[in-house]
């Protein structure tokens, strides 16, 4: 087990290096002169030259990458072109907004997905099963940004709402402590993931239910409930764990769209604004931070999966 953790940690290092190389390259792959981009379009030749000097753009590319990596490890991701502030400061509190959003969305996806998946599996081949699976298929096929727009129309604008339901009215934008601001973005982001987890849980449960050890449990005289929840579910959850990690990462990325719709001041919106204004140091910074978190979460999931799965691995 320890050996596995060490090996897995070592495997992560080249991936992280690859991620930094790719993010570093962003700036250099953009058509045009990086110094010009940083300086902005109207800048004088002297300014551009100064920036080139200051950012070390005259150095050979490998040296530039080395500097970039060294700085990044120390938390220095350069400065925003637009505001001149360090990228790290720009990200600052926005980081936690996005993480909070993704965590809530994960919780919603896991709870709804698990419950729906278990019901569908337990009531296999019934109306409940087909109903849940159709809804899940829709959830999977729906652009979540569109779903977000619908939610805003229904529950934030809510022209249809009778007065008695007005208390349910949500806020169409922003992020804060109020549930009125949190529920809609979290649902927007989490629904697709819930659909994926529901499908996954159902098929895992159905596979487990056919196993010999389930028959053994029945032969012992335990009730169907115990069979389902004690014997089957614990086994079925193992493959679902991996999906949860992937979903969390997907939510970090997907937050770009959700934050745009709900005008939430998180990392996703920062990224989009930076792309629009060609503020590449900020783009690099947010992409790097999100990816690194994603890689680390997956590392954790893999290790815990392995830990759970060690009992299943026959050899």
């Amino acid at each position, binding site marked *: 087990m320890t050996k596995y953790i060490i090996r897995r940690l070592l495997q992560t290092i080249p*991936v992280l290096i690859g991620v930094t190389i790719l993010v570093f390259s962003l700036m250099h792959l953009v058509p045009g002169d990086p110094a010009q981009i940083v300086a902005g379009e109207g800048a004088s030749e002297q300014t551009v030259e100064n920036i080139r000097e200051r950012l070390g753009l005259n150095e050979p590319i490998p040296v530039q990458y080395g500097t970039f990596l060294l700085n990044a490890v120390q938390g220095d991701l350069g400065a925003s072109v637009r505001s001149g502030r360090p990228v790290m400061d720009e990200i600052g509190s926005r980081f936690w907004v996005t993480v909070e959003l993704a965590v809530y969305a994960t919780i919603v996806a896991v709870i709804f997905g698990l419950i729906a998946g278990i019901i569908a599996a337990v009531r296999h081949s019934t109306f409940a099963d087909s109903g849940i699976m159709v809804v899940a298929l829709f959830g*999977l096929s729906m652009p979540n940004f*569109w779903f977000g*727009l619908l939610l805003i*129309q229904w529950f934030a*604008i809510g022209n249809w709402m009778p007065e008695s339901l007005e208390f349910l009215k949500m806020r169409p934008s922003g992020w804060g402590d109020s549930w009125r601001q949190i529920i809609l973005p979290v649902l927007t982001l989490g629904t697709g993931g819930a659909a994926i987890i529901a499908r996954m849980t159902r098929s895992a449960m159905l596979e487990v239910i056919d196993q010999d050890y389930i028959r053994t449990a029945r032969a012992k005289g335990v009730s169907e409930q115990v069979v389902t929840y004690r014997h089957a579910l614990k086994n079925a959850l193992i493959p679902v764990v991996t999906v949860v990690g992937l979903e969390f990462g997907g939510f970090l*990325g997907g937050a770009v769209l959700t934050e745009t719709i709900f005008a939430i001041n998180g990392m996703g919106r920062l990224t989009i604004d930076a792309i629009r204004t060609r503020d*590449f140091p900020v*783009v690099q910074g947010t992409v790097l931070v999100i990816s690194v978190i*994603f890689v680390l979460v997956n590392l954790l999931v893999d290790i815990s999966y392995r830990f759970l799965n060690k009992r299943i691995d026959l050899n």
Partner: protein
Amino acid sequence: MSEETVNQPVTAKRVNPRVESYKQFWRRLRKNKGAVIGGILILFFIVLAFVGPWIVTSFTDLRPNATDLTNKLAGPSAAHWLGTDGFGRDIFTRLIFGTKLTLYVGFFSVLLGGVIGVIFGIVAGYYGGRVDTIIMRLMDVLLAFPGILLALAIVAVLGGSLTNVIIAVGIFSVPAFARIVRGSTLSVRKLEYIDAVRALGASDFRIIFKHILPNILSPIIVQASLRVATAILTGAGLSFLGLGAQPPAPEWGAMLNEGRQYMYEAGHVALFPGIAIVIVVLAFNIFGDGVRDALDPKMKK
């Protein structure tokens, strides 16, 4: 026994087993409701994408970019089935003209990502060793950018246009193909007959194309169908963010973006393009699910 009776059954039985297995697959596919409905819907959208605009322009005065500011944000009516948008353009017409753009993004990005991914996957699975390690680490790096982020970063570099969306979504699809194809290649390569063919002196190229590729076609088809669904969603998302198709192109994601501004006064502008996306994506998802079930003998009781 006469010569005839000896020869005839032999020639009659000479069916290519591969053709036979495709036939069997086809039979099972036709029995799968999801695959049939999904397939028909996909065909319908393909026909609509190419014939629809022609029908609209031939039989009506409606044009996708014809503005009518006196009649903007009108609700559905006999003249404008799905109403008009903020410029008074007919939403129904725009949706029909946009079908092609949506399918383009779906098909071409998956084609691009599929070809690259399959090559990577086969090479990694077939040769193994260091080549395998390098390719798969590279795929891990691409997979380290969650969800739409990779496509977003690529579009950020290339600039916003439909072609760049196709490239970005294509690259975004590469790792999924590479992983699945590598796994299948590994299991096929282990089969004894591959050793036998190699012992007969077949070249790697020949083994890959004649013996491995046909055997791993099924997971590729399933993956492609499901991937088109994801690609359409991702492409629409990029256009929605203003990083894809540029106005006035009637791309569905871009239409949603425009409709966003009128949410308070005219909800339908943002409603219908979304429904269109859902139906197309649903078609590819149920088709992919159906093909997978038809191919998977485990699902058969």
